[in-house]
């Protein structure tokens, strides 16, 4: 009672009291995240550093070294898919951003629509197209060309990655491009820059934040995929994801080794993200200095 009177006399105090209450709303969430994010991540680390009996060992991590060729292949294919997505996606985002607003909305809707289909179905679609007796080869033969072996190659895996993840490149680049102040472009034109110079010296640098988030959003799922390589790469183009899958649910059941591989993948991705964020911050700082 006394406290109630005090608090109505001092509204500031009451505000603080309310703040304490609203802070309390975060606790259930924190408990949830500790149980389902932090503990499981800690389990991965523990499994990675122990053997089947539960004693400490570094053997799992040493074994990961044997698979360095698979790691390199994953990074290589993921990087190629990211570069292809950027080279194909940037012009598309640029073209879309030049249209009227209602047209832009329709085009973006059309870019996003395939993403609403489950990616297993989208990847399966390419299986039927790329097969040796598939749609493309039949079309080629009907036109008198020799058939081409496409399925179960690295090219098919990259194609699957680009097909599934290119919207993640186009969308962030597009949204940054539409936010560029048109008067900046006009200023460059007034100062005598031709279209090429305007693009290279103004539009492109200003769109870098979009490019960076697009690159991460394509690279991360590409590097860690196991479905695309399984469906389009056959058995011979294993990626990190396939390796992890095999240790947990596959024939090579060994959760300790699987955890070690997952840990290395996780650290790899977090380092990549850190580097990309660094770029982003530098870009922002430069932009700030320019103004």
């Amino acid at each position: 009672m006394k406290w109630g009177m005090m608090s109505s006399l001092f509204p500031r105090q009451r505000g603080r009291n309310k703040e304490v209450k609203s802070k309390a709303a975060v606790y259930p969430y924190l408990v949830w995240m500790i149980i389902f994010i932090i503990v499981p991540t800690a389990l991965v680390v523990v499994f990675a550093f122990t053997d089947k009996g539960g004693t400490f060992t570094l053997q799992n991590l040493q074994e990961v070294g044997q698979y360095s060729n698979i790691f390199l292949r994953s990074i290589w294919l993921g990087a190629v898919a990211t570069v292809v997505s950027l080279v194909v996606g940037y012009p598309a985002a640029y073209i879309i951003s030049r249209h009227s607003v209602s047209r832009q909305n329709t085009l973006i809707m059309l870019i996003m629509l395939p993403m609403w289909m489950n990616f297993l179905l989208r990847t399966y679609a390419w299986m039927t197209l790329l097969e040796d007796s598939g749609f493309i080869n039949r079309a080629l033969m009907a036109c008198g060309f020799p058939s081409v072996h496409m399925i179960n190659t690295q090219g098919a895996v990259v194609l699957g990655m680009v097909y599934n993840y290119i919207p993640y490149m186009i969308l962030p680049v597009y949204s940054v491009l539409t936010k560029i102040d048109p008067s900046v472009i006009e200023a460059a034109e007034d100062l005598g820059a031709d279209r090429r110079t305007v693009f290279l010296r103004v539009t492109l640098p200003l769109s870098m934040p979009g490019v960076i988030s697009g690159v991460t959003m394509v690279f991360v799922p590409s590097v860690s995929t196991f479905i695309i390589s399984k469906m389009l790469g056959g058995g011979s183009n294993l990626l990190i994801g396939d390796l992890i899958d095999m240790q947990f649910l596959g024939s090579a059941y060994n959760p300790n080794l699987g955890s070690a591989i997952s840990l290395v993948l996780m650290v790899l991705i977090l380092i990549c993200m850190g580097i990309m964020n660094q770029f982003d911050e530098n870009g922002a700082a430069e932009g700030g200095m320019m103004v």
Partner: protein
Amino acid sequence: MKAVSRIYMFLLFLFLYAPIFVLVIFSFNGSSTMSRSVWSGFSLRWYARLFQDQMLLVSLRNTLIIAVVASAVSTVLGTAAAIGINGLNKWARRVVMNVTNFPMMNPDIVTGVSLMLLFVAAAKFMGNLALGMVSLIFAHITFCLPYVILSIMPKLRQMDPNLAEAAEDLGCTPRQAFFHVVLPEIMPGVVTGLIMAFTLSIDDFVVSYFTSGTTQTLPIFIYSMTRKRVSPEINALSALLFGTILLLLIIINIRTSRESKRSETLQKEA
């Protein structure tokens, strides 16, 4: 230049849509032979076969149950969390937001594997339980939560912090202030979060794959179909799903354009 950009966009959309259209067309294929790409007459047999598949109906039911429960729980928990985070000081907020961002940056497969380790350990601890619906729901709530929070946070930032206080000064209990003032104010963010959680849950394969045990969800069912050599039912399923999505989007589009027209006319009248 215009012609070049038109051709470019045409080729891009051809690349994006041709595979889907091929699937849809071949869902009406009469052939039952080994090849998936020989046309032999119109038929609806794969659709009939699909609806006779008991597994499909079970997996569809599971997917919907999980999506409804996971999106509802993650929206309630996420809304509370967003409000709580908004009241934290800078340092604590930074820590909590890092925890929130972590599962979004982490590759799905690592999230799936880590949750699998947790659930397997917990199931053993509680006496030989198996992974299934419960572990799936827990996993789905976990990966939906960050998206709910991130769609509500901007709305909370935009809101005038004095509003809730004003409501309380005018005699509302904190509870009334929340339901009558704060919640309506952040509702658009809450709805976006709910829809996002629902679609993420329906669409998820990777995390479900590691946390489902022997329980089937729709994406897992699709996966088991793609593992078979020939499964033309998958074409029929794709066509049905694509049709449903298209229909939903068209309805949403018509509604929003109608609403914007209505608000335009209202503005003119005013």
